[in-house]
């Protein structure tokens, strides 16, 4: 097997082993409900994490996504409450704004040569602040179209459902995989992660790619915000605090190097599922106090990383320093 796929394979293997262990303890976890929930409940996180994967592959980071998701939700709620425009139009508007927002951050990062960490941190403050300014209340969305959208789902035998948003996440992942590995934009993304200076000398359009990457992340954060607003039928400025860290963790657990240039979009999906599994397991257990919950999540995170390292190490991946 090509050693490039080793981290990915290791991650998938770990997920399957972990799931098997969970089922051994709680047979109920095999139900289609749990699987359906895993997709539905993590849909917004997964979609945002696809954007994060592209950003991290390029050697950057995007801390703004949690705030952008919240902003999108509040924006939609306020818009649908105050005007009578159709949600689809509102969606398009929201996506346009978040994409532009991402592109703006990308432009600042590229043209002012500022570190992504800080630019997107400021972006996070700004997006969350804008959400506050729009409304500090949580606003329900009562538009009938939302109900229609929620009515679309595929019922699995055993009571589980593949919902619209769960399906959308899978579609986004498929599109993400295609973009990453089957387009020039994707190749340029990896190239940036390998080294900006070298990529520039090799003729990669740095400016366009950087801006494109953050715009994509902004777009997907916006999409994730739409999904989140469907998920909760509301907009709330305090929602999804810290989601960026969950997304980063999913990306890294999925085998992508935070230094950029190496990893897979598909890995992120597994990373998301692993995190979802940890949470489901903890809820099924249901005996942990608040603090033990945190400690256990930390320990499981550590165990997964360690296991991944171990698997990769023992299957012998010799890599020259680059």
């Amino acid at each position, binding site marked *: 097997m090509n*050693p490039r796929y080793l981290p990915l394979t290791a991650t998938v293997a770990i997920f399957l082993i972990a799931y098997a262990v969970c089922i051994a303890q709680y047979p109920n976890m095999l139900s289609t409900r749990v699987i359906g929930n895993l997709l539905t409940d993590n849909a917004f996180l997964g979609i945002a994490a696809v954007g994060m994967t592209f950003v991290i592959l390029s050697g950057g980071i995007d801390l703004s996504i949690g705030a952008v998701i919240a902003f999108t939700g509040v924006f939609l709620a306020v818009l649908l409450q105050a005007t009578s425009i159709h949600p689809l139009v509102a969606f398009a508007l929201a996506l346009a704004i978040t994409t532009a927002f991402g592109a703006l951050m990308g432009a600042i990062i590229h043209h002012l040569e500022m570190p992504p960490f800080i630019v997107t941190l400021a972006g996070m403050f700004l997006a969350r602040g804008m959400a506050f300014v729009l409304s500090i209340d949580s606003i329900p969305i009562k538009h009938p179209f939302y109900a229609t959208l929620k009515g679309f789902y595929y019922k699995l035998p055993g009571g589980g459902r593949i919902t619209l948003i769960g399906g959308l996440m899978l579609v986004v992942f498929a599109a993400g995989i295609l973009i990453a590995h089957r387009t020039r934009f994707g190749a340029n993304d990896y*190239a940036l992660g390998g080294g900006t200076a070298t990529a520039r000398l090799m*003729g990669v359009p740095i400016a366009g790619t950087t801006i494109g990457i953050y715009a994509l992340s902004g777009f997907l954060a916006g999409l994730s915000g739409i999904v989140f607003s469907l998920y909760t039928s509301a907009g709330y400025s305090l929602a999804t605090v810290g989601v960026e860290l969950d997304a980063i963790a999913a990306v890294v657990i999925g085998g992508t190097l935070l230094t950029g240039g190496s990893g897979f979009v598909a890995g992120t999906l597994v990373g998301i599922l692993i995190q979802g599994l940890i949470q489901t397991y903890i809820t099924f257990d249901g005996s942990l106090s608040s603090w033990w919950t945190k400690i256990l999540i930390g320990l499981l995170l550590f165990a997964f990383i360690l296991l991944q390292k171990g698997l990769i190490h023992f299957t012998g991946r010799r890599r020259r320093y680059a």
Partner: protein
Amino acid sequence: MQPDNSHVLSATGIDKIFPGARALNRVDFSLRRGEVHALLGENGAGKSTLVKCLTGAYRRDGGRILVDGVDADPQSTLEAQNLGIGTVYQEVNLLPNLTVAENLFLGRQPKRFGLVNAREMNRRARALLAEYELDIDVTAELAAYSVAVQQVVAIARAVDLSGKVLILDEPTASLDAHEVAMLFRIVRRLKERGLGIIFITHFLEQVYEISDRITVLRNGQLVGTRETAELSRRELIAMMLGRELVQEVAAEHGAKSEAGEVRFRFRGFGRKGHIQPFDLDVRAGEVVGIAGLLGSGRTETAEILFGAERADSGTAEADGRALDLTSPRAAIREKFGFCPEDRKVDGIIGDLSVRENIALALQARRGWARPISRSEQDRLADDYIKALDIRTSDREKPIKLLSGGNQQKAILARWLATNPDFLILDEPTRGIDVGAHAEIIRLIESLCEKGMSLIVISSELEELVAYSSRVIVLRDRAHVAELTGGKVTTEGIVEAIAAGGRADA
């Protein structure tokens, strides 16, 4: 200069100013169709800078560029590529994290239904590399291959990109004779097709073998452009250095002191998957050369001797005392030094100043609690900048801003500053100009006289022959022959390498 139709590329009055240094001063340069034009000069003369200005990698501060007689102003390498200019930059070894095929076709991947057609891309990549007799897995990451393979890939990419002009900035530095011959065959073929080729190197033999015209730069200024056939070596060197070189290197031979006692003794030293166990004796005051083809395990030998890779078999002793070579730090404590081959990755600390780069190893050996005082560091840096003629405007300049050859000299200075007993040099003269080349060889000899033991790895056999008292020949990651005394000749080495047939591609 008038635009001339026979010139595929011409540049007039190119200026480039860096903060604190003027790298190019009104340089004129022109390239004819179907010629190989050598661009020569000392380290830091401005060759790479000129290339980068021509290809839009740097924004020039003045001057005009014409491609096919038409004003062109490439703002980026991408635009230069679109103009038909393919370039192999010095140091830039492509993107290690992409596959070989992706590196070759980045930005121009074959598409099908709007998507990249990976199968087609890999097929073409294999076909392309076959021309260079390189049969490697093109779907593996580039980082998995040695510097030399990476260099060949970079060349293949640039050649494939160049419709009109091919620029090669020290492409042969990490290639051995076989690869160089192959590269030249390809260059000749391109030349027949009417391409203009700019060729930068410090190997004068290669210049005379392949080039039609020569342009020499010195201190960022144009010294002159001449027909190769009309320019003698002596004159050329004088043009480059601005003075006569006292003696030419390869001429002298035999100044090697017949060394004394065996000082360092390695028995059954090796590591699985890297290099087969070998025995090695090194006397005080001798140079042991290591020769072999690419990938034959020369660098592995060096790394294992220095503890950069831990040996899993064998013993090492000095003067009968067992040595601890389990890590570079341990090796340095035993007064070992190692000047690595890949200076960008293993050598320079890019953002730190020349001074700090020179003082680093010495400081590391003394430990953090005993800092080398600033004045002492300044003195150290100044001494070596002078002794090795490191061209830098200032010892506080970040080393990454130095020209390639001068970086190499600074790394050498780092190790000389630690005054080691046993020094391993992996391709020490790579990318170093004739003047400095002679200096370094003289330096190696004087180090020997002081009783230091050296291991030198080099692809330049003449050079190896010039200073080695013995040469170890490697093949397929094993030490296969040891040449001593009168057998230390270029022919002898080539014969020993060839003895088992060519190892691999």
